[in-house]
């Protein structure tokens, strides 16, 4: 679906979609705080326009916002996301540990976050080829019976 949207519009579109969903959640919830959904829509519109304008600038942030990042900018983004995930895992573990210690009932979101980050890490190892060791060639299967150092 994203390929039908021009690169510069992709991030603002995702941002706008997330904002609309957030606003809709407040609207569906109803009650005296329904006006939060209006604020969320306004905030989303402002943020999406700001993201679109940033996408046109000649900076690293502009390249990421405009979905035209090169390999270095993608690497920076990847490292930042990895750091964010590490922080989420550590924070959730601390939260879970504290919740257990004080016998709190609010510990389950920490457990869910910790399990998701842990499972996501294992999923990444599987998806990105750590398990694919490949088949050994002739030199490793028979012809070379002893270790080169023995």
């Amino acid at each position, binding site marked *: 679906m994203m390929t039908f949207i021009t690169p510069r519009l992709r991030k603002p579109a995702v941002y706008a979609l997330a904002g609309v969903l957030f606003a809709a959640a407040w609207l569906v919830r109803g009650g005296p705080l329904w006006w939060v959904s209006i604020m969320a829509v306004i905030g989303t519109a402002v943020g999406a326009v700001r993201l679109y304008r940033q996408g046109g600038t*000649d*900076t*690293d942030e502009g*390249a990421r916002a405009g979905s035209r*990042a*090169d*390999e*270095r*900018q993608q690497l920076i983004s990847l490292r930042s996301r990895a750091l964010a995930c590490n922080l989420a895992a550590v924070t959730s573990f601390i939260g879970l540990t504290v919740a257990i210690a004080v016998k709190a009932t609010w510990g389950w979101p920490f457990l869910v976050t910790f399990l998701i980050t842990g499972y996501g890490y294992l999923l990444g190892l599987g998806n990105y080829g750590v398990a694919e060791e490949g088949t050994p060639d002739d030199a490793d299967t028979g012809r070379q019976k002893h270790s080169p150092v023995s």
Partner: protein
Amino acid sequence: MRNRVREQRTQRGLSQAELAAAVGVSRQTVISIESGRYLPSLPLAFTIARFFDLTVDKMFDPDDGEEGA
């Protein structure tokens, strides 16, 4: 790792933006490569070397001792 990107670029009278457009990266990445803060991937190293009609080992000197990003 030392490289000759800046030297080759200035010899040919190119701006960083022109080189960036020619090899398909951002101007900021050219600046990072020239200053040694970023080591390009192998495909990008080949693209840069070929653009200047040099081999990769002539363009990037691994014997300089310093490690990049």
